[in-house]
Structure formats: C-alpha cells, structure tokens
C-alpha cells in the first residue's frame, strides 16, 4: 500500500472542537490550487526536482485522500485539475481508492456528480449528529436533514463507498440521543462509519470553554457506556470494527487509513500535511502563507522532518496496528525480529484471559472491550521495545 494525501485548508466555519489546520476565508483558494499543483510537481518522482522523498519509487499509489478542512469547497473543475496533475506525476493504481471529505452543508447533486466524473470514488461526510442541540454545540453548519439529503445525492451520483462521521460523548448528549443518532445514521446505510469520542484538543475554542469551567465533560463511565453502545449497535448492524473509531461493511475498510495504521508509506501535500516514507516523517508548514512561499520558491514546504530509530518504528508499528485491525505476528517478526507473543508475556496472557485481546493464530487483535482500554494495553505493550537488542531489528 502506498498513500497520497492532500490537505485542503479551508472551511466555511470553524467547528468548536476542531484542531485541523483550516481557514475560514476562501479568498486564496484559487491561488492555493495553483500552489498545490506546484507541490505535486515538486514531490513527483518523475520530476527532475529530485526533492521527492519517494524518488525512484515505482510502486503505484493505492489510495488518494483529499482531507481538510473541507475539500468539497473546491470546485469540481479545480478538483479535476488536481486529479489530472496527479495522474501525470504519480503512478496511481487503476483500482485506487479516491476519497474526498465533504461537509453535508456544502454539496449539491451536480457537484457530487462532477466529482465522481473527475475520479473520486469514495466520500466521507462529517455528519456527527442528528440532534440539533448537539450540532449547535459543535458549531456544525449543517442540520440533520442536510445530512440525509447529502447521502441521497451521493448515492444518486453513483458513490457506492460512503463514510459518515459520528461523534459521541458530546456534552449534553444522552444515551438516548446517541442511540437516536445511531439509528438515524444506520437508516442511511453508509458503507463505513467513523465514530469518535469528542476530544478536547489544545488550542480549540472548546478546550478554552472547558478550562473556564463552562462545559461539563462527559464522565468516564458514560463515555465508556456510550462507546460500548456504539460498538454493539454497529457490529450488530453488520459493520466490522477495524480500528478504535472505525467500522466498515465487509470489504469497505478505508484503504487510505489502513496505510497509516499498517505502517506503510504515504506522500502528503498541502499545508500541515504529514508524510511518511520508509523511516522518515515530514510535515509541511502549518500556515498557508509559509507553505505557499516555499513551494513557489521551488522548495519543499516542510516545517521539519524526523527519521525514526528502529525502536521508534517498532513502537509506532505496534501501537498503530494494535489500535487498528491487529498486529500480524509473522509480519512483526519479519520487521523487527521479535516474537511478539513471548515479548508481551505475562501481560498478554492476562489480557487474553480477561477478553481484551484475541490471538487468532496469526494476529493479536483487540476485542471491543480491548479497544475501550486500548491505550492502557498499548503503553504496557511498548515496554518491551527497550529490552529488544537493536541488532535484531531491521527497518520495515
């Protein structure tokens, strides 16, 4: 797997909880598109710039993901130009997954059809809730009806792979409203559901309100109960949980996200985007101006990069796979020369006994109960990394 991520840093209105890099003014969106085309060139393996971290890489990209921000603020024409340029500059597999994040409040049937024609084959809607008070709390610009309408439009435009985001542990939310949100979402039959517990991210307006004591966060007990409700409702409805917050119908897991979680490579473009190639992670400037200036000067717009040690790679691989669809034992041994089953004893035995972890013979995988305490298990699991002789390890 080999991913390609493009960050579109514009939103109509910032949501109170969001810490993604995005601007409320779309004034510079056209200039942004041109600059993005230049970065596509800069990082291209077929361009002479030589600055591409994946230079010489012949592997085809298996997924392309337009995230943000709100990529649906891009006109279909702009989207089309970007996609054409990507095809010119990168090898992209014919069956690649092309995802685009959309705000249910910014789509029309025409636009969706045009995106589909341009090559997008997967949509991701930030629905979050079907309860008006919750949507207001989160500062979402759409209402429940618009979410329903968006889904209908998506299906009519020919999208057979649609994700919806759902949020729980929102202050004021009850088990009843969550249950209502879930059933409304299931009625729309998305192919994929991302269900997140609300995070109070530093620097967001929501975090400031929390610090001022204006918000009572959901208690751990209720958060846990809500999470359990989400997991059972969605699994009962035929969705398979393949990551802490992600559920999919069979065959509809998001390939792009699995790229992150399986420790595979991905190129990233656009302000604040993070890319990862072999052992190196880079991140672009988190400022449209800084990013634009660099790219237009013909330089990589990176704020920084880090090369991971074997220990760090091992830690990342373990925690990412554990929180997703499990750590493949053979692959782990091949990458790091470590027999995971014995490295995790005696804890692994306790976790299996308690029903937190399943060893299915090839993979160590968290159960629904296990996901609930995923970080506890992870912190404990990565302890062995310090004890493994580095000579045994190779970079993946």
């Amino acid at each position, binding site marked *: 797997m080999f991913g390609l*991520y493009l960050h579109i840093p514009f939103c109509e209105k910032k949501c109170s909880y969001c810490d*993604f890099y995005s601007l409320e003014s779309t004034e510079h969106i056209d200039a942004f598109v041109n600059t993005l085309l230049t970065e596509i060139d800069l990082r291209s393996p077929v361009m002479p710039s030589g600055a591409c971290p994946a230079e010489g890489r012949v592997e085809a990209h298996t997924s392309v993901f337009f995230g943000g921000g709100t990529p649906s603020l891009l006109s279909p024409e702009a989207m089309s130009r970007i996609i054409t340029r990507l095809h010119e500059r990168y090898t992209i597999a014919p069956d690649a997954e092309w995802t685009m994040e959309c705000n249910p409040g910014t789509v029309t049937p025409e636009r969706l059809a045009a995106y589909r024609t341009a090559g997008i084959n997967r949509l991701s809607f930030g629905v979050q809730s079907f309860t008006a008070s919750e949507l207001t709390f989160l500062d979402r610009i759409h209402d429940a009806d618009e979410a329903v309408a968006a889904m209908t439009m998506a299906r009519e435009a020919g999208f057979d792979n649609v994700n919806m985001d759902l949020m729980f542990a929102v202050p004021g939310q009850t088990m009843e409203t969550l249950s209502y949100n879930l059933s409304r979402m299931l009625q729309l039959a998305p192919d994929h559901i991302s269900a*997140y*517990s*609300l*995070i109070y991210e530093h620097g967001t307006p929501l975090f400031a309100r929390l610090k001022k004591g204006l918000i009572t966060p959901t208690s*751990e*007990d209720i*958060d*846990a109960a809500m*999470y359990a409700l989400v997991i059972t409702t969605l699994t009962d409805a035929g969705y398979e949980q393949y990551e*802490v*917050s992600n559920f999919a119908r069979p065959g509809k897991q998001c390939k792009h*996200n699995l790229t*992150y*979680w399986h420790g595979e490579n*991905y190129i*990233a473009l656009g302000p*604040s*985007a*993070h*890319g*990862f190639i072999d052992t190196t*992670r880079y*991140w672009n400037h988190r400022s449209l101006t800084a990013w634009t200036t660099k790219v237009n000067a013909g330089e990589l717009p990176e704020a920084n990069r*880090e090369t991971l040690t074997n220990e*760090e790679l091992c*830690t*990342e691989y373990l*925690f*990412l796979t554990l*929180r997703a669809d499990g750590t493949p034992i053979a692959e782990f041994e091949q990458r790091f020369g470590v027999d995971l089953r014995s490295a995790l004893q005696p*804890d692994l035995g*306790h*976790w299996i006994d*308690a029903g*937190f972890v399943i060893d299915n013979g090839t993979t160590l995988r968290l159960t629904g109960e296990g*996901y*609930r*305490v*995923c*970080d*506890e*298990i*992870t*912190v*404990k699991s*990565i*302890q062995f990394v310090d004890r493994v002789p580095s000579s045994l390890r190779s970079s993946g």
Partner: protein
Amino acid sequence: MDVIPSFRHSVIPSFRHFVTSSFPYSVTCGLMQHYRNFCIIAHIDHGKSTLADRLLERTGRVTAREMTMNQILDDNPLEQERGITIKLHAIQMDYLSPSGEKYKLNLIDTPGHVDFSYEVSRSLSACEGALLVVDATQGVEAQTISNLFMALEQGLEIIPVINKIDLPSAVTTIDNVKKQVMDLIGCKEEEMILASAKAGIGIDEILEAVVARIPPPKGDPKAPLRALIYDSIFDAYRGVVVNVRVFDGTLKEKDKILFMNTNQTYELDEVGVLYMQRQRTGILEAGNVGYFTAAIRRLQDSKVGDTVTLANNPTDRPIEGFREVKPMVFSGIYPAESDDFEDLREALGKLTLNDSAISFEPESSTALGFGFRCGFLGLLHMEIVQERLEREFNQVIITTVPNVRYKVITTKNEVMWVDNPAQLPNPTMINEIQEPYIRAQIIAPSEYVGTIMKLCMERRGTMLGQTYLSADRVDMTFNMPLGEVVFDFYDKLKSSTRGYASLDYEYSDYERGELVLMDILLNGEPVDALSSIVHRQKAHEWGKKLCVKLKELIPRQMFEVAIQASIGSKVVARESISAIRKNVIAKCYGGDISRKRKLLEKQKEGKKRMKQVGRVEIPQEAFHAVLSLD
C-alpha cells in the same frame, strides 16, 4: 520543690567531680597552654551553628565578606536546605585575647537531632569543654539534657550560653530559662553567658570564657603517639581523610602509623589542621585536633574510635573507643530499574565511606527484585541517606516501609534477628517475638501532661517517672516500643503540644510483644515488600488504614484491584480499586502519529517506575505508604 531531674544522679554521680579528675595526664607543656578544644552542644535549633558563624567571624577565620551564607559550617546542601546540622564540623581558629595571649581554638559544631547523637559523643571525646547553648525562649529541652549528660560523662567543662536573647519574647521567658539552666547544671547565675548568635551579642564573652574556663589539653608530646579518630571522611582523591585528636606524642608526615584496633599500618602523606579548608602543617602535636591522609582506600581500616599510634613505637595504652553505633531502623532500598542493582551497591558502598552508621545487605523481594536491606539510626537519618543516594549518586530508588529489628525466639529456642518482616519465620516455628524498647524522655509545659500520657499510652508506652523541672515544666520518662515511635510519633507529639514538647530517647532493651505478621494481598497475591509486623491489638485498625492508603496511592488499572490486609489466613481489612472504564484516544491519523507516539513513550516511562505483582502495577510511593498514614 526538688527541680533536679531524679535520674540524673544515677547517670552521673557528680558533675564537678568529673571536671577535675577525668584527664589523668599530668603534663601540660608550654604550647598546649594555648590550645583550647571545645564543642558546641544543644537541643536542635537552639543556634549552635549560628553561634559558630559568629565565633568564626570574630576570630577572623572567616571574614564577613566570606560569610556568604548562614550556618557556614553546614556545608552539605542538604544541611543548608533543611537548616539543620547532620554531621559534626571541626574548625580551628586563632584567637587573640584582650590579655594579649594568642590561642588556637579547636571548635566542633555538632548536630542537635537525636538521630545523630553519636556525632555529639565523638565530638566530645576530642574536647575539654563544651558550650551548652540554650534557647532563651524555649528553655531546657530533651537534647539539652541528653547532650549535657554525655558531656559530663566525658568530664568536660560546661559553659552555659543562653542564646537568642534578641528575640522579643525572651524578655518574658529568660528568667525562667536561666533558672532551668542553673537547676540543671548547678551553676551560678554569673557563670551563664547571655548571647545572641544572630545579633552578635556575648561573643567576646564566650571567647574569653573558653580560654579562661576550659582547661588546656594535657598530654606528653614526647610520649608514644596516642591519637583518637573521632571522624573520617572519604575523599575521592586522597582516600580516607582521618580526623584525630592527638593526646600524646606527635604526628608527622612520613611517619609510619598503626591503627591499633584494625592492626593496619600506613605511611602518613599529609598532616594538618582544619580551617574552612584543610590546612597542611606537616605536624600535629599532643593536645591538638587535626587531620591526616595516608592513601587509605578502605574506611574500615581507619575506624572511628580507634587509636592511632606509631608502628615502631606503639603506645601500650590505647584510648577507650566508642560504643559502636547500631542501626535502629531498617528499610529496603531497591533500584527502580532492576538493571541498576550493581550501581546501587556501588553508591551505597561510597556513601558508607562517609557515613559508617549505615548498614546494608543484599536482599530480594518478589515484588521489587534485588535490593538491599539498609539500617539507619532513625527516620531522619534514613531520609537523608535516601536523598543523598538520589542527589549525590543519581540513583532512582524505591524504598520500603521502615521497621525495627525483631528478636525471634524459635520453638527450638534459637534466636533469630529479623529486620525484614517478610523474613519472619512461620508462626508455628515461633516461640516469641521480642521488640526493641526505648527510654523516651519528653520535656514539655505541664499543661500537656495529660495529652502526652494519652499519646504514649496509645503507643504502648508505660510511664517510668515524672519530674517537674520548674512549676510549669515537666520531664516525663516512658518505656516504649521503638517500633511505635519510629513512624510519626514525634510529629504527633509536636502537633498535640503546639510544638512545645521535646523528645529524646535511648535504646533500652528487648521485650516480648504480642506481635504478628500482617501481609498485604493485591488480587489475592501477597506483596512481600508491603508486609509489616504489628501489635495484635492494633492489627485491625492498622490494616484498615493501610488498605485505604493503598487505595489512594495505587492508580486504577484495567482490572479491578482487591486490596486485603491479612494475618495468617485471616483477612482483617479490605478495599477495592475499580477498573478503568475507558482509556483510548479516539483519533490517530497521519498528522497525529508522531505526537501520539511521544505521548505513549512518556506514559511508558511513567509505568516503568511501577512494580508489577501479578497483574497489578504498584507505584513506588505505595511501598512506604505507612509513612503517610495518620
């Protein structure tokens, strides 16, 4: 009213008697006439080290400009931070008397805290006199008496100094305090010097009294060398620096010396006296106090209390040494990470070079792995050792609950010494358990008699005697198990008497006790490092408190944790810690991974400091939970 403490007579038949007869040496040569060796003794905080500052200043040993900090002799950062003296400090001063005579004064500042009273007794043996400092607002307190008696036993001339007369409240207390002091040592009013170490009052008078009242040392510089080791310090470059008081003969560089007790010979490298830094003189004659080095790598070779003589002309009269100090309180010290065991051994080895009162022996625990059972003089000593290990030797350690050393008589009538509760033999093999008792002396205003009696009784004490030092000041003696005093007795005593009570104690004997082993079980598994030996009648309450405390200290885990206190198979208390309900960050995409990894790695470091028993992770603080019980 008879205000003289009743037991004083039993300890010292007559104080005046000692002053005149304790030094059976007849010779005082010309040089010696101008030496005075004295120490400063007092109850804790009565101002010994501050007085030393003034003396050093007045004699010009330290200029006012060099006096960059208060209590300048307290040169260990821990002493400065805590504002207390831990180690004796010797220093020589030159004093020009108004009479025109020049003197060399060897001063030793001593600690006041009861844990370090052995430092006082060693200091005394190098001196002919002592300044007994008494705080004008506090009056005679427990260590005032115990240190005074030690000095009297050594036959020292006592100069009473009433200090802190600058304090406004001294106006109302001073007459009473003067009377207490006069009653205590049987001196006349004019023999007491009124002083303020802080304001520099009475300093000249003290210096004059030192030369006038303290006898010069006696000894024969021509006789075979007899020098007493009263302290030794390990210096990484020169090896052991031995501090001595020369009684007879002369120490010269290049001399071949013999340590009489250990029978080791060495050639002297460097000989000198002690200023703020060591001052090489090449020679040290009878009557003087100073140091030498001889490339001694092992502190055991130069034992404190041993007599140094010349290898080729040894004395036949070794000086009577000191009673060896025995650790009273024991605790396990373990490396936080098991790989660091050898490092810790090395650090302890080095620390004991400078503090021979510490004992340590390897031991192991199922909960904590390999570590050491260490012995200390008391709780303050323990705290200081632990802090020095961390600060001076960069050790990350886990310490267990301190306990005393028990004497176990087995059914086969054998005696076993147990200083680690986990090593108590099976009850079926125990005939009886004995525990150390102390004789505790408490001095307090008489209004607190009831409170103090109650407190001591709760701690299984029995009163031995009660004497009024003055109409409103009482001196009480109790026989108490040391194990009951070790923890928070002193704090309790202080808080229930608004700080007015003072405590001194000395070891008395072992007595049989109704003692049982209390185990702590976490999810059914005993945690050996949490075991303690408690009195049967207190086991229930103790167990309850401990369980509650552990519940507070052990963080919630993925599983519910049951905490039980048990005696044998009988559970006497229990608590439980509910499991973590949810701990997972919802989002982790490309941009979050690096941050998330760092967060997890940080949490991992935190977890590393936890010890795991079965499924339960125990933070370090839990292993000395008892110390914070109330």
